[in-house]
């Protein structure tokens, strides 16, 4: 397992994909913190700078994770590397988890670099963005990466070729980041008023992006951002039950796809022979 993880890291580090994404992410993070800082104002709750930073995370990290994971896995399948690997006496568990760890370490290094660069820019520009806020976002970014890397494994296992993996990743990404919310908005027009709050609550847990988005807004400033109409939801989600459910949902989103891809790999090996 350790070797598979190591090999995965090496492969990723040598590819230009990761470097490219790393540079893109770092430069965007730096630009947002530099241009949008409201440091001198003395307010460090949820504002539009933090919203932009959050949006960069919500847009880029899922995309990066999905593409890297699914393309590498499907590529290996296409090149028969995976099949070769499976002829060795290793269990599918250690293959998948090894690859997952390798992917995660690679993405982690990119994110750490990006956040580190942003912090340095904050220091040199003399802006007053709170470090605890950035740390929080860093944590949530890692969670996002953990969830979407695990999803990418499923895509990689399912896709027959690199191009198929690319297509599926993009469709899933676009749906989760953009269309999901429009769908919920549309639904909210059709539903009865008393059903709206439960519907919104459920919608948080069905989409990992919503999960992270809502949770990071709540942990920044809580009640006001979602407004008076959703005050009940806010109080519930910010309480103990909400927090527990959030962690539970995060673990489910991270573990289920991994387990599923192991299961799939066990069968898939049989299929392809």
């Amino acid at each position, binding site marked *: 397992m350790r070797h598979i993880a*190591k*090999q995965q*890291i*090496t492969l*990723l*580090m*040598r590819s230009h994909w990761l470097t490219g994404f790393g540079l893109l992410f770092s430069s965007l993070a730096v630009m947002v913190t530099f241009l*949008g800082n*409201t*440091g*001198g*104002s*003395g*307010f460090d*709750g*949820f*504002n*539009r700078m*933090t*919203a932009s930073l*959050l949006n960069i995370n*919500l*847009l880029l990290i899922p995309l990066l994770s999905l593409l890297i994971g699914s393309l590498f896995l499907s590529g290996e399948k296409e090149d028969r590397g995976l099949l070769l690997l499976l002829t060795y006496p290793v269990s599918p568990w250690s293959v998948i988890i090894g690859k997952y760890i390798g992917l995660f*370490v690679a993405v*982690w*290094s*990119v994110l*750490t*670099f990006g*956040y*580190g*660069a*942003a*912090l*340095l820019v*904050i*220091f040199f520009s003399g802006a*007053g963005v709170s*470090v605890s806020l*950035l740390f929080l976002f860093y944590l949530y970014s890692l969670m996002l990466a953990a969830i979407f890397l695990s999803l990418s494994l499923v895509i990689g296992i399912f896709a027959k070729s690199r191009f198929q993996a690319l297509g599926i990743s993009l469709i899933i990404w676009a749906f989760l980041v*953009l*269309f999901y*919310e429009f769908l*919920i*908005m549309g639904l*909210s*027009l059709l539903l009865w008023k008393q059903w709206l709050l439960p519907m*919104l609550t459920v919608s948080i847990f069905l989409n990992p992006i919503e999960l992270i*988005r809502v949770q990071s*807004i709540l942990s920044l*400033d809580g*009640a*006001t*951002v*979602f*407004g*008076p*109409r*959703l005050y009940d*939801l806010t109080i519930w989600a910010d309480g103990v039950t909400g927090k527990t459910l959030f962690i539970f949902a995060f673990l489910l989103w991270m573990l289920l796809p991994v387990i599923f891809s192991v299961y799939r790999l066990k069968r898939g090996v049989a299929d392809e022979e």
Partner: protein
Amino acid sequence: MHKLLRRIGIIILLLFWFVPIDTSANNLKVEDGQSIQRAIDQAKAGDTLLILPAVYKESIVINKRINLKGEKGAIIDGGGIGNVIEINASNVTVQGLTIQNSGSAQEDSGILIKKADGNRIENNTLKDVHNGIYIANSKDNQVLKNSITSYQSHFSKRGNGIHMFKGSGHLLNGNKITAVQDGIYYDFTADVKAIENHVHESRYGMHFMFSKNISAERNRIDKNVTGLMVMDSADILLQENSVTDHFHVRGFGILLYETENVVVKGNEILRNSTGLSLENGVNLFINKNLIAANQLGIEFVGKNNKNLFAENNFIGNVVQSRISGEDWRLDDGFRGNYWDDYSSFDLTGDGIGEEAYKAGSLYDRILRKQPYWQFFFESPSVKLWTKAGSLFPSFGSAEVYDARPLIEPAEIHYSAVEQNRVNWLSRVIGIVSMAISLFVMVKGRKYR
């Protein structure tokens, strides 16, 4: 302060003058089982009554110049009828007492000061009282460092923390007021200074009615229905107050209604339903306030005349401004305000954006129809939508705008020390995290 010194000087002079006669200015003690009222009746003007720790179940009327000094644990219990302490004489001090259980009629209070001047109420704890301290038709009283709570009940059944009816020249400093109807009520009063008081969990933090020349500085007002309610008053100074967390659906941070000559400067107005609401005001000067994280940042209703509105920071309000009147400028002609959703640039380097800031985005208008959609505030898809909307200028129907929007937030006040520490920390963490990730990247390239 100067005035105060002079006054003390005069008192000391008078004391010297009366020394031969007033040799009997005594310190008297009141113990458990004795009556404070009887001690007052027997005391002479100028005496000091030291109240030893015990519960005294009585209501007291003070009608001569004495000092009432409570030791820790001295409790006066009014038994739920009338006022607990009524002061009819001038230059009385009441210190260090716990005062509880007044009646619940309109004017029943922990301490009632009626037609009496220059009294000092200091370091007392008032609880389960209808009104905390009621000052009627009096002058120059000082209310310092008291803590006031009313009884457990809906706020409509409670009285006010400090109620001033007519009279003038009072000083309120460092009082802590919780769970009353209105924290501090200015009722036809004038020339009052309220400094560093803290009002929370009440109906209104401060309520101004038909009052003149009031200044409120560095007060903390939070978690009430409405923070500062200013109506039909004039010459008001609101400076460096912090007005936060008024979530009530009809709650406001600061509401100015039909009021003249108001200075609102350097206040922190955070997390309210409506931050600042201006209705039919005249000659308002609103400068260097931080208006952030409110549901609605600022609201203009009706006709506001001769106003200056500049150098305020609007950050992260869900709706920055809503304007349903006319004749309003969002800038003073030289400098405007900082709006964190402003997205144009400063090309000339004077700190002012070249394009006017237009109030009201597409999202604001959608939100009015679909309040539940606030759930998607600043989310990626909404951002995409509003960006697409803003590309069509015909949609922007707002007529009110800030012609001189600031590019960076106006400097208000913040502690430089803390800023430095955070920056040092950020440099260290930044370098360390970059070094670790680079190490992993380089190391990872070589397989073993």
